[in-house]
């Protein structure tokens, strides 16, 4: 059946801010869907509240809205754009839930909008666990025994039937949020209560435990002609009990016989038919008993998912793209397989390699959080690696993770507590695999390890082979190692860095010297990687797509071209502080270079991303971003240039080494990056330019740190150099705290000193992004941070344009930015953080590279800054002509011209962040100098208030327009609170406050009801929150004594969804937002309408 011609405009819903459980895989799927539908001639309208996405680039849709993903917001867009259909299956659970809500609100009917790709009924069956189970039983499939409950009493009745251990899963939550495993009644009660809270419908499913069963997933596609195919099977190495997002997984399945696999395949297809997925892709999860092969169906997602992104990258089959085409009426056999061109998409990819995915955790940011892995997802990103064998892929994946490890151990950096071995094997934990390694080394048998971990012995046997080879390698040094053994080690995935450790290669003058010595020896022996194509067909047909991975085989398939070419280094796994923003920049670097006629070559290892889509760059190397792996690609491709400034710290860490071995790095020279990081050199530069900066120094020991701190005076900000996201950054008020910090931080980054700066209390912070061609500087955007200094800029809301900064200071910042860009020789992007205190503008930090804010600034200004920056790196020149500027390059026949600050499209743009508190129970929710947010949302409006209100909504915080406001601030903040409290009262809010705050406000004539703190009696603030009697909370930290009291309030607020402001600047902004909401102000303008291109 050909595509439908009765549809013209299709609305695609994105997934909103990046949160744990819903990350940039939906940018990848959404981007594919946009491209697929436009390719078919449909008019595509896109809505997403996340400005950091590539899908929201104005070139990818006909009308792009960065607006909150709520029913009223969507209704306005539907009314304006009049779409014929909505595709809700590429925006995660957010989009699916929103589509169901639009249906339930009657909006789809009212505007005559059809849902394509999923039916409301199918979504409901798949999401309502009881209905899903009933359906499975109806078609003869087995499911764990279970029951649902909406109260604790019901839950207790269910668990009497199903027994312990019991799995508790709340309905309608992301990534299993709020669920868990209970081994006893006490845990059961606690988890059920939490789960009922977390579920928006107050429902939990209590389930028979299949802990320790093997876990498999199938990615299934179906078309309207009932053709069904399995795209990929995925085996979870971590058995049932660990969320699949937190599991190490392998594709294809390794431990199934054909009979077992085909049985699962039949079930997968039967599930889609029973749930009623007529077109598109779904993920079906199974548990398999290791002792008798019984298969239980666990769940299914009637949409593309994290696993389908992984499956797409693992197989080369673009699930989201094909799903979009199926949704508009095509059948699988009508669509070609892009990679083989001559065969159709109605087939099942077959792999002649092994794919391993390992999740990336960020527990170092949340030291109080429980690191046990459960059914509630806790990882923030993932890496994927491809090898010809499991061992090779597994080792490549570990070094891809960028956690300071050169692979799966064998690098001298093991931190093992031998006395905890058994516990560490039994309890799933991010470091468990290192304990498996230790267990093998200490002679524990495969059977014993498998019994303790419940990991299938086949995997343990493979790992044992790695450990055995490691033992053999240790008997040699670099001069004596037999070439065959070295080749065997490379085939098993050992990195040069691991080999340098195992062969005891002495460290040289540079930190990379030993690794390069191994590389040198390897090349002398002719041991180089071969590159192979991900071709969907195990080489049965020729592959036309240069999607490549390395191995050590006999034949190379890279077939590099003779074109002018540039390698772009990606940003690796998502983590807090380095996420989708950098993938946006890397993808735009590809677009910008392609426009200049270069062949673009991407290296990256993050399967969730757009940059690793095989049709983003001309050539894709799915490889770890280590020195070794990058140099290997450079050897094969011999690029004209390598771009390192768009992928965050990942490529920057390689800059000096790459330059040292003669790799042509384009853009800002690595030395400038080093200069900006080196406090002494940078301090000297600022002095020379006469630019003020807070007093500062650097230290490599506690004694040095003390000297510096005493010189510049407390409070000081301390942090290791070369980190993103304020990793291990702290504000320190005294010697004792400094000493404590130095002991931890020096361990955090042994190769670089700790930076110490005077902390400017109560300063305002500004963020400036600019591009420079080496001479001409264009300011991209000046952002004013809404939180005061002390909150990491990545966690602070910010606004463009600045709204409270005096013009003279803006002028000063522009001048400093230009001076610094030229002095550093910036070619490309740069970001400067400024602070303003007592009328003085200070430079806090300069980053001569792409920053987290680039996509936000691009959306706010309507200018693709990252593309222009990369063109500068490719020797383009910037020209400014008043408010108009343009970029010129010999390859551009018509330079693109842009207007800065176009009055007719002038709006306020606010970026707000989302924080992962709900994932980590027991963690305090205060903001500080260490970044903790996972993602961001953006709001735009005619006034600051409107923009701020939308940004809050985008991040899931719905500011109230009436009700009770609860105020509790420290003494220092009381005076500043007063006008805010007055405004709230004037808006009709009833004021509640803790005794001190209440007394102060009462003294100043406000009517305030005083309520108890948690430790003062009942009913207290937490009771009020739980009873739904508080609509808004303003709570600034009161100091150490009341710490637990406040933490309880803040956690209750998060659980019950009460908007909470922990800074007064944030509270003041919220008041403006509430004012805007009360007047009903809501303006809509697509990005295309706001383009600054002239």
């Amino acid at each position, binding site marked *: 059946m050909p595509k439908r011609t009765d549809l013209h405009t299709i609305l695609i819903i994105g997934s909103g801010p990046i949160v744990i459980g819903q990350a940039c895989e939906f940018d990848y799927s959404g981007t594919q869907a946009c491209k697929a539908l436009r390719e078919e001639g449909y008019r595509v309208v896109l809505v997403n509240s996340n400005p950091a996405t590539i899908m929201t680039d104005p070139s990818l849709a006909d009308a792009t809205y960065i607006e909150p993903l709520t029913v009223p917001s969507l209704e306005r867009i539907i009314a304006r754009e009049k779409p014929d259909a909505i595709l809700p299956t590429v925006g995660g659970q957010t989009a699916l839930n929103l589509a169901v809500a639009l249906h339930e609100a009657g909006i789809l009917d009212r505007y005559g909008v059809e849902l394509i790709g999923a039916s409301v009924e199918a979504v409901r069956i798949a999401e309502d666990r009881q209905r899903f189970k009933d359906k499975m039983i109806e078609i*003869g499939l087995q499911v764990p025994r279970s029951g649902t409950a909406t109260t604790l009493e019901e839950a207790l009745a269910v668990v009497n039937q199903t027994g312990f251990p019991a799995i508790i899963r709340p309905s309608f939550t992301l990534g299993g949020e709020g669920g868990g495993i209970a081994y006893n009644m006490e845990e059961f009660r606690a988890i059920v209560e939490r789960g009922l809270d977390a579920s928006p419908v107050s429902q939990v499913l209590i389930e028979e435990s299949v802990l320790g069963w093997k876990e498999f997933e199938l990615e299934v596609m179906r078309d309207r002609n009932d*053709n069904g195919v399995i795209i990929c*099977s995925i085996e979870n190495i971590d058995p049932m009990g660990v969320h699949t997002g937190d599991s190490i997984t392998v594709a294809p399945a390794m431990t199934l016989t054909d*009979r077992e696999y085909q049985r699962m395949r039949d079930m997968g297809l039967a599930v889609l038919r029973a749930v009623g997925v007529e077109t598109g892709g779904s993920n079906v999860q199974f548990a398999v008993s290791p002792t008798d092969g019984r298969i239980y169906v666990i769940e299914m997602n009637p949409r593309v998912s994290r696993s389908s992104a992984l499956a797409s990258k693992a197989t080369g089959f673009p699930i989201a793209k094909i799903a979009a085409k199926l949704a508009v009426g095509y059948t699988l*056999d009508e669509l070609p397989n892009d990679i083989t061109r001559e065969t159709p998409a109605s087939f099942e990819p077959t*792999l002649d390699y092994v794919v391993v995915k390992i999740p990336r955790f960020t527990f170092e940011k949340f030291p109080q959080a429980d690191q046990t892995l459960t059914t509630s997802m806790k990882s923030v990103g993932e890496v994927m690696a491809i090898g010809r064998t499991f061992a090779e892929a597994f080792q490549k994946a570990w070094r891809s993770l960028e956690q300071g490890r050169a692979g799966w151990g064998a690098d001298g950096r093991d931190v093992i507590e031998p006395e905890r071995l058994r516990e560490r094997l039994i309890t799933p934990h991010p470091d468990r695999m290192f304990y498996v390694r230790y267990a093998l080394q200490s002679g524990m048998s495969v059977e014993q390890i498998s019994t303790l971990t419940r990991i299938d*012995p086949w995997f343990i046997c493979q790992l044992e082979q790695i450990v055995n080879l490691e033992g053999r390698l240790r008997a040699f040094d670099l001069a004596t190692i037999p070439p065959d053994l070295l080749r065997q080690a490379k085939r098993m995935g050992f990195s040069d860095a691991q080999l340098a450790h195992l062969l005891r290669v002495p460290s040289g003058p540079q930190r990379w010297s030993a690794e390069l010595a191994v590389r040198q020896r390897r090349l002398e022996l002719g041991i180089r990687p071969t590159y192979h194509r991900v071709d969907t067909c195990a080489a049965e047909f*020729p592959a036309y797509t240069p999607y490549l991975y390395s191995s050590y085989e006999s*034949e190379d398939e890279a077939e590099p071209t003779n074109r002018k070419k540039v390698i772009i280094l990606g940003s690796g796994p998502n983590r807090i502080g380095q996420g989708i923003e950098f993938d946006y920049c890397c993808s735009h670097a590809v677009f910008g270079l392609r426009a200049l006629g270069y062949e673009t070559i991407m290296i990256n290892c993050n399967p969730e991303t757009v940059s690793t889509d095989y049709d983003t760059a001309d050539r894709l190397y799915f490889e770890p971003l280590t020195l070794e792996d990058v140099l290997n690609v450079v050897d094969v491709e011999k690029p004209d240039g390598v771009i390192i400034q768009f992928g965050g710290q990942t490529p920057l860490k390689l800059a000096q080494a790459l330059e040292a071995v003669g790799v042509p790095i384009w853009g800002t020279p690595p030395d400038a990056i080093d200069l900006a990081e080196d406090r002494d050199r940078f301090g000297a530069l600022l002095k020379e330019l006469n630019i003020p900066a807070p007093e500062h120094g650097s230290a490599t020991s506690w004694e040095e740190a003390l000297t510096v701190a005493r010189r510049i005076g407390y409070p000081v900000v301390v942090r290791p150099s070369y980190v993103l996201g304020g990793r291990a950054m702290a504000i320190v008020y005294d010697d004792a705290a400094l000493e404590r910090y130095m002991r931890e931080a020096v361990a955090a980054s042994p190769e670089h000193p700790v930076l110490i700066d005077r902390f400017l209390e109560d300063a305002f912070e500004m963020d400036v992004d600019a591009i420079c061609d080496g001479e001409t500087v264009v300011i991209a955007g000046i952002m004013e941070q809404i939180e005061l200094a002390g909150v990491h800029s990545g966690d602070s809301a910010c606004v463009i344009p600045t709204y409270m900064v005096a013009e003279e200071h803006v002028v000063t910042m522009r001048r400093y930015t230009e001076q610094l860009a030229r002095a550093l020789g910036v070619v490309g992007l740069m970001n400067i953080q400024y602070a303003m205190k007592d009328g003085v503008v200070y430079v806090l930090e300069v980053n001569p590279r792409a920053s987290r804010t680039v996509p936000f600034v691009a959306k706010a200004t309507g200018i693709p800054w990252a593309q222009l920056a990369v063109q500068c790196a490719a020797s383009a020149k910037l020209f400014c002509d008043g408010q108009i500027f343009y970029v010129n390059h010999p390859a551009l026949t018509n330079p693109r011209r842009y207007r800065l600050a176009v009055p007719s499209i002038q709006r306020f743009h606010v970026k707000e962040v989302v924080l992962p508190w709900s994932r980590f129970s027991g963690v305090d929710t205060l903001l500080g100098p260490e970044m903790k947010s996972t993602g961001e949302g953006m709001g735009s409006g005619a006034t600051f208030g409107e923009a701020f209100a939308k940004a809050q909504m985008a991040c899931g915080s719905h500011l109230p327009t009436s009700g009770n406001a609860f105020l509790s601030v420290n003494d220092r903040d009381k005076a500043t609170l007063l006008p805010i409290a007055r405004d709230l009262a004037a808006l009709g809010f009833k004021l509640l406050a803790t005794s001190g705050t209440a007394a102060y406000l009462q003294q100043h004539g406000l009517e305030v009801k005083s309520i108890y703190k948690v430790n003062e009696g009942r009913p207290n603030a937490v009771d009020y929150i739980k009873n739904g009697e508080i609509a808004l909370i303003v709570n600034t930290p009161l100091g150490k004594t009341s710490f637990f009291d406040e933490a309880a309030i803040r956690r209750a607020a998060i659980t019950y969804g009460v908007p909470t402001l922990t800074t007064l600047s944030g509270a003041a902004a919220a008041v403006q937002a509430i004012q805007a909401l009360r007047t009903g102000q809501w303006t809509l303008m697509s990005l295309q309408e706001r383009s600054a291109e002239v």
Partner: protein
Amino acid sequence: MDAVLVLEDGRVFPGRSFGAPGERVGEVVFHTGMTGYQEILTDPSYCGQLVTMTAPHIGNTGVNDFDPESIQPQVAGFIVRSYSEHYSSWRARGSLAQLLREYGIVAISDVDTRALTRHIRTAGAMRGIISTTGASIETLLAKCRAAPPMEGQDLTQVVTCPEPYHWTTNSVPFTPPYPNGPAQELIFHVVAYDFGLKRTILRRLVDHGCRVTVVPATTPPEDALALNPDGIFFSNGPGDPAAATYAVATLRSLLGKLPIFGICLGHQLMGLALGGRTYKLPFGHHGANHPVRYLPTGRVEITSQNHGFAVDPDSLPAGVLLTHINLNDQTLEGFDYPDLQCFSVQYHPEAGPGPHDATYLFARFAKAMAARRS
């Protein structure tokens, strides 16, 4: 122990032996299925072939007593990238290497199977020799070139059963119930000509209500008819169909007398019996992911395939309805001749290994037999 694979065009692939010691010549083919090595090894259609698995890890689930397609391994030799001596499966009773050694099958691992596959894909299926003897490449090459090519070889008589036997075992307990469950009663009697018959085919026939009498390939047609069957089945098997002239003659004399169903070689024999022509494909179809369109409904089946020859659709007489087409290369995958109550498919609807999408063909055979009775 070191081993080597030498192809007739002189290309050499070194590796390590994991099967029996010795030397074996055969036609090198590659199979792209990711599961099912035990079924493949024991499928008599692979007689005379050195089978390369493109999936890199082989041996993971060991071997068990339930999955063989015949009583013993049938391949001439086995070629893999990475052999797992350690296996994990609740059904396993031993390692793959044990099985291969027990039956004297040579096997080589640590071969760059992707390079080998790419080579076969471009140069075509060819003879090769696996050796663990340490003989010189020249010697091996000479032996390899001296062996007869697959074209023109009738291997059916090598693999057929010596005596007739009865089969009444269904797929249970190996496969979960079909939507309607396997038939309880065996109401039809089918005579199955064994040219290298797979057990899964027998089980599927039983699932669909058939009691099967398996007869040797050379059984005269009148002997088959004397068993008073409701239908005749022509099995899969190895070698060049055009060389099995005796079987073509048998089939031709049975045509029109009762429902006949053919699979793979049986399909090719039926094509030849109807006056058609078969030809050798460049490197054959061996895998579990081939899309086939069933023309009457337009639906696509993912199929299990294992054949080096195909029937030329243009050579078939008028009245033959083409029913199945391979969507990768548009070759003929099945036809139907209603006038003569016969139909056949080139691929393997019984799976074993592979997807179960085409099980309906067995139901169709049963329906044809039911129609004949009434």
